[in-house]
């Protein structure tokens, strides 16, 4: 664990530093390779189940439970460009640390987040799950396509895309250390992006 672990990442943000940015950018570069693909159906199914569980928690608005799927020091990154870029030099749709993810949930719970009053209802489809090895035995990269069907304001819209996950096996389970959400329309104007995507 990093030397910054003495800080509570729900309260302060020391772990979002150049080392973390470098690590995340490297992890999300050139990782979707056939030679790294995990073939074992048991392992693949385990990750598929984790993604389906995440989709269910989000659909059921169990956001506090959703937060528990993540490592203490985690990242939720929705780039505003197709290439992802370097978040130190460009703004993203979102680049959240643990505290900001908790902020996000807190805001939605205030009762004054007008963009979610009334709340959206969502159904998330998760598919095309692929698991990839990394050079660390306790780290896996997972790719999945998603489609969020979101009902709000008398109509249902679709938010498709694909997500990359960096899972770390620690504390006796696989925790999401970084989640990169790539909306198909990431570089276009999006109406009311106020749910967790």
């Amino acid at each position: 664990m990093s030397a910054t672990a003495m800080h509570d990442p729900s309260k302060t943000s020391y772990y979002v530093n150049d080392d973390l940015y470098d690590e995340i950018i490297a992890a999300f570069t050139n990782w979707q390779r056939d030679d790294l693909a995990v073939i074992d159906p048991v392992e693949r199914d385990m990750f598929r189940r984790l993604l389906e569980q995440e989709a269910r928690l989000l659909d059921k608005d169990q956001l506090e439970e959703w937060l528990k799927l993540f490592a203490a020091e985690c990242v939720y990154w929705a780039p505003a460009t197709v290439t992802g870029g370097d978040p130190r030099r460009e703004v993203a749709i979102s680049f959240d640390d643990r505290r900001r993810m908790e902020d996000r949930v807190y805001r939605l719970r205030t009762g004054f987040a007008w963009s979610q009053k009334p709340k959206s209802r969502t159904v998330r489809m998760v598919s095309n799950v692929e698991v990839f090895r990394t050079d660390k035995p306790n780290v896996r990269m997972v790719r999945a396509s998603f489609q969020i069907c979101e009902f709000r304001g008398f109509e249902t819209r679709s938010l498709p895309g694909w997500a990359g996950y960096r899972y770390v096996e620690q504390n006796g389970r696989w925790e999401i250390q970084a989640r990169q959400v790539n909306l198909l329309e990431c570089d276009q104007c999006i109406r009311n992006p106020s749910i967790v995507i």
Partner: protein
Amino acid sequence: MLDKTAGHNRPGFNGPGYDYDYLIQDDRVHQSIYTDPAIFTAEMTHIFGAVWVYLAHESQIPKNDDFITTKLGLRPIIVLRDSDGVIRALYNRCTHRGTTLCRLEKGSAHIFRCPYHGWTFNNTGKLRNVPWPDGYASDFKDSKFNVAQVPRVESYRGFIFGTLNMDAPSLDDYLGPVKGPIDEWLDRHPGGKIAYCEANRLMYRGNWKLAYDNSCDGYHVVFSHRSLLDMENRLVNEADKGMSFYKGRPDSAPMYMKYFGHGHHFKDKRPNMEIKPGAMWAIEGPHPGMEHYEAELRRRFSARADEALDLAASEPVNINVFPNLSILGNHIQVIEPLNHYETNTIWYGTAVVDDEGVWGDALPLINALRMRTQEGFPNFGEVDDLANFEEIQRGLAAFEDEWVYMHRGMDIPGRISGDADGVITAPATDEMFMREYIKEWKRLMQTEPNIQIKREP
């Protein structure tokens, strides 16, 4: 009491045209200026065709041959630096059959080849080549075949504007005193420069003026942004983060707004805070990496660290240049009307550039922080405003209830003051700026612009 003017007897709609003196009154405006597609169509000529419209920032086209595509009102435009370095705004429209010449959002090109029949144009707009010209009896040296362009394109300190109206004043005169806040905003950066980075891009289902009506509105903050204020202050004992200074008695707070003429206005929240380095940083809410980068800047640049942190902090000003540019915090927001009830708002992030090396290796740290501080408001603040704009648009469908009010601060002695040069000052929570800019809107809607396009000879 019955309102006999409502419904079919509405006097604003008598006769062939619109009676803008009826639709725009001293204290209120008619709902139709937000809901009527014919008024939107007229705006594309009388507003977007008549004034200097913000098109692009020079940092988007740093080198010769660089281009971006954008719009002037609804007109598709290529803003480019031609091969000789001249900044031009070409109509993105082939002179043959009218197709767009360029379908990319940005890039670099010294020629544009039309995808449809292969006519080729220099990036000056001049026609260069037509396939199999023997099939034509016409003279392709005739300038009518060169791409049309916006006849007047000028920059103010990196901000590129264009107008189609030959009768418009110079850009310098058009901007007038709003240049003061723009200068101050730029000059807090080393070398007085910034660069575009990526953008938070939002769309809402409402008229474009709802965004401009909001751009200086200090009345909505603690209500529309309550969830943001609660969120930003959830970890501190005394709520002083973000826009907390709007709590209590904001009417009598030292912040103020100014109206500058030509539809431009300015809200200055800086007087709410102490004038000292680090004051802006002190009220930033939590952002990813803030403790780490702050500690790092303090360790490495002790005496200047507060100044560096202020560069990552959001500047508490709203500078609004009619009709489509708002400098808000560190963002450059561009309002893009799509039709009478749909609008894009693009919140371009800005990065600190440091050509003279004033900040040396502090610069990447400042920008790493500044990217995160800029994501906060679009994610947790603007979405709620946009939801409220959409609900206004929905509310206005009750069209017999005709009036939308903007009279806060009006007729209260001593509240609003005017300078000799026409600048008007009011409390930051008043609707003075709405009344003033919409008067200018009315004047423009009643005036015929002298619209022309230019072609290379």
